[in-house]
């Protein structure tokens, strides 16, 4: 699993990356009440808005950590947004993106680096 400074995580299997927000982010947001996942087929560029995650008092954009085409979105989050709080780095995933530029992954942090980054916040 690799991480961004905006607290997204990426898990790559083959040429498809599963994307979500980190446990740290989920805790900072508080109770997630709504998630707007992208439409399947949407093409995203690294750093662009991919999804929106809302708590009662805030709406936050989730940025695409990698470029590519959205091949699957986690529709279950619309009925149970609390999954993002419960298992942010597993069942709380947002979307699966078919990588168009796998080289982008190299610049992302591994868990050790991400945790070191968190300790600076």
């Amino acid at each position, binding site marked *: 699993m690799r991480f961004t400074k905006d607290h997204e995580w990426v898990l790559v299997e083959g040429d498809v990356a599963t994307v979500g927000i980190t446990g740290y982010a989920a805790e900072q947001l508080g109770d997630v009440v*709504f998630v707007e996942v992208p439409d399947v087929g949407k093409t995203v560029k690294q750093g662009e808005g991919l999804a929106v995650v*809302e*708590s*009662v*008092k*805030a*709406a936050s954009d989730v940025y695409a950590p990698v470029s590519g085409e959205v091949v699957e979105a986690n529709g279950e989050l619309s009925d149970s947004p609390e999954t993002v709080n419960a298992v942010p780095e597993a069942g709380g995933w947002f979307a699966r993106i078919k990588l168009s530029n796998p080289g982008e992954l190299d610049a992302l942090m591994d868990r050790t680096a991400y945790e070191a980054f968190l300790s600076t916040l």
Partner: protein
Amino acid sequence: MLGVIGAESIDELFVDVPAVARRTGVVDLPLHAGELEVEREMLGLSRRNRSASEGPFFVGAGAYRHHVPATVDHIIQRSEFLTSYTPYQPEIAQGTLQVLFEFQTQVAALTGMEVANASLYDGSTATAEAVMMATRVTRRNKAVLSGGVHPHYVGTVETLAHAAGVATERLAAAIDAEDAVIAAIDADTACVVVQTPNVFGTATDVTKIAQAAQAAGALLIVVTTEAVSYGLLKSPGEMGADIVVAEGQSIGNGLNYGGPYVGLFACKEKYVRQAPGRLCGETVDADGKRGFVLTLSTREQHIRRDKATSNICTNSGLCALAFSIHMSLLGEKGLRQLALVNHQKAVALRDALAAVPGVEILTPRFFNEFAIRLPVNAAELVETLAANGVIAGVPFSRLEPGAGLDDVLLVAATETTPDLDITIFAKTLTKVLAR
């Protein structure tokens, strides 16, 4: 107090005001006045207005004179409703919040829609908001407005749409052609906006328009300026509307020379996250007791800022309360009866005016308002009739000067219209036209 603050004078507290803008002494306006003097002054101004209750009165076109039960005004003047703020602290605002929840339910029922919000400013701004919402839902950029939409509503929509970069196509004013919007729908159309009863009073079944719009991926927005009509006419929801906006003034609110009024806004539940304005929802408190809170607030400006669904903050809370109280007093039974009485009065007015030589009735099917064609300029005639004690209605040219309908007059009757006034109107009109 200055001692506690550590200041020598009040002026010291204004030290941050640049010297160039500091004013000593008072501005050039009258000094304070006692309650008696102020009341006398206000009474003097008010007496120079001819109120609707003073004599024959047939003005509608977006605002309607109805009887408001005394209970309504009594309750809205209770301190706890009148002098409270937006219910941001739900533990000490359950009164306002429960009213809003009941109001939302009443509006949803009236319009035949799944959900309604806690009110917007008025019917015209609600229409503009609905158009903006449709562009977000459909991600398209054009609104088509029928020729039956109130011209001032069209103006309000066009003003905002122009700034937001949304294209508008408004069809020529037409008494009975709401269906004509169907031909104007194309692949860019975010929404079609139709009004029933429309500005000429014509009631229309918009089912076919809804089907055509939705088949093309557009939303149908139905506008109603006379909310009492929901007691007699099939609701927009039953006819397939996606968004319904209405002027709610008719129920619980006086004419007030144009405001404050209350904008009703209802839509299909699937679109609610794109809706403007406040929403009240049910929840529980820490003890598990039912309570109400403002919810889905991430749509709103105080959280979403430049990405909010609307910039609205203050809405029409107290007018919504007045609406809700009046609606509760009426109930379904009273509303249906009120609507029938309105229709009956308008039919009587039509029959009386149809008998006036030179007058042509233009509106084929109506609720409590219709258009007539006169053998003379309507605006001039209205002035003449006013000089003879009859406030006759609204010349269409006042709403849309360039429409070529200078001989068209919009007239309305409600439960407040005495039969005698209808007779006086017809007689006075006959006399004036005979000159």
